[in-house]
C-alpha cells in the first residue's frame, strides 16, 4: 500500500493547469510550421502564422494562449495499491481553483445549465477515475474550450451504416462546424461501447500524442483515410478556406451491442492543451 497525500494531487493539478493553458508545447508548434509549408491558401497560411506567433507569445509571457481557458477535464489512473488520505475529487477541484485564481485564467463554468450564473472558480472539473495495476497515479489534465466542444456530438448509428456511415457523419460534422471550433483541429472519435462510453473514448483519444500510431490496424487505416478526406473539405485554418482543416484524427473503439454502432466525435481546437504526469 502506498499512501498519497491529497495535497500532492492538488499541487500537481494546479501545476498542470497553469502549464497547459500557457504552453502548447514545441512539437505542436513544429506541426503548425509543417502545415504552413503544405497549406495552399494564402489566407490560410497567414492564419497559421498568427496562431504560431500567438502560441509563442503565450509561452514567453506565460499568458493563456486563448481566453477560453476551458472547463477542466482530468483523467486519473490510480493504482490498486494507492491509498489517499482524503477526498480526491475535492483535491482535484482545489487544484483547479488555485490555478484559475492565481494564474488569472478565465472562470468559464456556469453554475446551472438553465439558470446559468458562474461558479467563480472554474470548478467543478470533469473528473474520470480509472483503477489500474500497481501503486502509481497517472494524471492527465486538459482545459477544454467551449467552441470546439459545442461542435462535438454522439450519434447512434446502426451496423448497416458501417464505415461509410461513420465517414459521412465525420465529414458532415467537420464541414458544417466550419471555423467555429477553431481549426486546424484534432478530431477524437469513439466508436462502439454505448452512448456514454463512445463519448468517453472520443475524449480519451484526444489525449493521445499527436504522432502516435494506433495499434489497431483497422483504426489506424481509418485515421489516415479520414485525415486525408477531412483536409479535402476546404474548411481550412479558422474556416477561412484551405487545405489544413485537421492535424490529426485519433480513434478509439470498444465492443458494443450487436444492434448498435455508437459514434462520438469530440472536436479539439488548435489550442490542443493536455498535459500528463506520473506520480
Amino acid at each position: 500500500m502506498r499512501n498519497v497525500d491529497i495535497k500532492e494531487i492538488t499541487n500537481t493539478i494546479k501545476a498542470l493547469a497553469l502549464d497547459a493553458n500557457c504552453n502548447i508545447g514545441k512539437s505542436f508548434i513544429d506541426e503548425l510550421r509543417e502545415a504552413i509549408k503544405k497549406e495552399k491558401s494564402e489566407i490560410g497560411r497567414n492564419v497559421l502564422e498568427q496562431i504560431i506567433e500567438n502560441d509563442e507569445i503565450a509561452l514567453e509571457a506565460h499568458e493563456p494562449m486563448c481566453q477560453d481557458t476551458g472547463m477542466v477535464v482530468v483523467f486519473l489512473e490510480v493504482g490498486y495499491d494507492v491509498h489517499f488520505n482524503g477526498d480526491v475529487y475535492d483535491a482535484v477541484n482545489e487544484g483547479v481553483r488555485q490555478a484559475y485564481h492565481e494564474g488569472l485564467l478565465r472562470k468559464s463554468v456556469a453554475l446551472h445549465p438553465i439558470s446559468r450564473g458562474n461558479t467563480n472558480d472554474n470548478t467543478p472539473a470533469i473528473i474520470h477515475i480509472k483503477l489500474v495495476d500497481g501503486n502509481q497515479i497517472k494524471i492527465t489534465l486538459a482545459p477544454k474550450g467551449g467552441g470546439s466542444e459545442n461542435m462535438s456530438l454522439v450519434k447512434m448509428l446502426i451496423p448497416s451504416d458501417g464505415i461509410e456511415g461513420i465517414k459521412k457523419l465525420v465529414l458532415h460534422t467537420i464541414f458544417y462546424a466550419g471555423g467555429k471550433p477553431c481549426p486546424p483541429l484534432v478530431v477524437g472519435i469513439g466508436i462502439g461501447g454505448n452512448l456514454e462510453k463512445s463519448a468517453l473514448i472520443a475524449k480519451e483519444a484526444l489525449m493521445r500524442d499527436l504522432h502516435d500510431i494506433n495499434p489497431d490496424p483497422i483504426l489506424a487505416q481509418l485515421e489516415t483515410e479520414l485525415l486525408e478526406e477531412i483536409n479535402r473539405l476546404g474548411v481550412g485554418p479558422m474556416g477561412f478556406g484551405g487545405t489544413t482543416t485537421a492535424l490529426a484524427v485519433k480513434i478509439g473503439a470498444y465492443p458494443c451491442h450487436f444492434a448498435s454502432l455508437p459514434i462520438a466525435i469530440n472536436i479539439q481546437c488548435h489550442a490542443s492543451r493536455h498535459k500528463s504526469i506520473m506520480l
Partner: protein
Amino acid sequence: MKLKTPITKHDILNMKVGDIIYITGTLYTGRDAAHKRMVEALESGFELPIDFSGQVIYYTGPTPSKPNRPIGSCGPTSSYRMDAYSLPLMKKGLKVMIGKGDRSDAFIKDMIEQKAVYLQAVGGAGALLSRKVVKSEVVAYPDLGAEAIYKLEVIDFPAIVTYDVYGGNLIVDEVKKYRNIQF
C-alpha cells in the same frame, strides 16, 4: 485598410469581403450573457447601457489582466451564438460585429438590411490580439465577470471582412476553392 471608430456609412460601403481591416479606436465587448441581458432590457422597454450608434461589438470574454497589462487574453468567440440577439442591436445603430465562424442566413439578411458588416478575427489568437489593446474598462454588467461589457481602446486591431453589405460571403467563396470531396 485602416479604420477609425466610430464607423460611418461611407466606411461600411467601402468594406468588401476579404479586406483586412486594422481598427483603431473603441471596441465594446459582449458575448452570450450580455447580449441576452441587453435584448431583454429592450423588450422590457429599457434603454441599452451603451449607445451603439456607429459602434463596434467584439465578441470576446477576456481572461483577467496581469497587473502590468491592459487586458488578458482576448480572442474572438463563436459569433453564431449571438445571431438571435443581433437584430435589435443593429436597429440601435450597431455597425460592426467581430467574432469567429459563420452565421445564420437570417442574420446575414438582417445585417445587409441594417447596413452593417461582420468581420472575423483569428480565433485562438487571444494572446496576440491582446497586444492590440491599450486600455480596457468594464462599462456595463460588472456582475457578469468575463461576460461583462468592456470598453477597449485598440490600435490597429486586425480583422477580415467576412460578410459585406453587397451580399459577399468570404467563407463560402474561399471554402469552395479548396473543397474537392462530397459526402
